[in-house]
């Protein structure tokens, strides 16, 4: 019987998550739409994510470009350095950095905010007043996270490519013209679309996980801390797995 309980808890949590996700989906299209909350949340997530994104994308891309350049220089094909940079930046670094920043910064803040409200019983008060907390609080947050992730990902790619260009040209003596010419050799519109799709999915998933963990928190302030910790972990897990799946699918579809 204890085994059923041990397995039952995560199953219940998973079920609760999907139930909330479905609720959110349904409530998105029901008026009144919480525009003000959406804008406030979007601005908040953008504000906390902007600088970390810029600062994080440069060392990432530099690392990838450095690795590629060693390989290409060994073959004598250093002119294709731009190709390697574009490939890694658009397909992997853009989505991954977006994951890290949105999950690490935005999702934790959302979870902490909602968690604090839950243990203060504010959500119950909203329900008593007839306001559905999912419609008023969760939907705008999820949409805000999706939008900001969608907008952040191209920023990461651009900044990363610029950083990769500077590093390749000035530290590894790659011809600048060859770098720029090689950018679009393998990476095309389909890859950019895949990158944007990934970023949107990431934002959506991170927002949903954060909100679910926030509204299902229990056990006082320590519980909020735990919930935030679990948000980060589960967001990372879900996002990395989604990244792999969408990458593999993307290749099947675009090749």
């Amino acid at each position: 019987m204890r085994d059923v309980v041990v397995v039952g808890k995560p199953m219940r949590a998973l079920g609760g998550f999907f139930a909330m996700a479905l609720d959110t989906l349904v409530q998105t299209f029901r008026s009144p739409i919480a525009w003000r909350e959406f804008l406030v949340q979007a601005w908040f997530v953008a504000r906390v994510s902007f600088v970390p994104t810029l600062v994080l994308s440069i060392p990432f891309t530099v690392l990838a470009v450095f690795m590629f350049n060693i390989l290409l220089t060994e073959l004598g094909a250093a002119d294709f350095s731009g190709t390697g940079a574009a490939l890694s930046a658009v397909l992997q670094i853009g989505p991954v950095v977006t994951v890290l920043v949105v999950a690490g910064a935005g999702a934790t803040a959302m979870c902490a905010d909602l968690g604090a409200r839950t243990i203060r019983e504010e959500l119950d008060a909203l329900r008593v007043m007839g306001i559905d907390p999912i419609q008023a609080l969760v939907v705008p947050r999820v949409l805000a996270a999706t939008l900001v992730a969608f907008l952040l990902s191209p920023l990461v790619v651009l900044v990363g490519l610029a950083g990769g260009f500077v590093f390749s040209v000035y530290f590894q003596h790659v011809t600048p013209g060859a770098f720029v010419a090689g950018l679009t050799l393998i990476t095309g519109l389909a890859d950019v679309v895949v990158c944007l799709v990934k970023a949107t999915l990431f934002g959506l998933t991170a927002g949903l996980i954060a909100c679910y963990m926030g509204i299902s928190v229990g056990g006082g302030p320590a519980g909020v801390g735990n919930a935030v910790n679990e948000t980060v972990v589960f967001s990372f897990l879900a996002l990395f797995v989604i990244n792999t799946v969408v990458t593999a699918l993307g290749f099947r579809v675009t090749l």
Partner: protein
Amino acid sequence: MAIGHGQTRVHPRWWTLIFTIVVIFAAWLVGQSFNRSFRAYVPVTLMSDRTGLVMETGAKVKMRGVQVGRVGQISGGKQPASLKLEIDPDKVALIPANVGARISATTAFGAKYVELVYPADPSTKSLTTGVVLRSENVTTEVNTVFQNLVGVIRQVDPAELNGVLSALAEGLGGQGARIGEAISGANTVLVALNARSHVIREDWRLFRFQSALIRS
């Protein structure tokens, strides 16, 4: 700022300064290590007519397939070009002082490296600082081949050449046996003519003499 025991007599402001200095120093260290300034090497000079395309600093110097150093500085632009090679100190003892050198490429992309050729009669002295080596040649590069090819193509219009060749091919198609017979027949005739070549020469001389007489 409830750190409690964490506070020392040093004001936090100084800590940030110390931290900034440490970070700058670490960045400098990384840069120096990146440029390999911490490796010891034995400098050797290589003179060559050409360095070859895609010969870059950091290219390998190999002997018998084992890397013994790398190319340091390349100064070119005027004949002859000179490359500064940095040989590993632990391998320099195994390289004789009169070793030969050649600039070759490993892959089709043409990235060059320096190959040290073990001489047939190795000198007993090994390579030391400042020895000057001469390079034998540079591998024929795909670029040179293309350059020559482009020159030929400029002279001959490939489309026209293609047309002429296809017309020839069409005309001569299926005539292989007859052409063969014609050529063997011509060969027999010419062999016979060759045997009588001095008679033909006499006849021509007399014919010229006659026509000169008739004109005057």
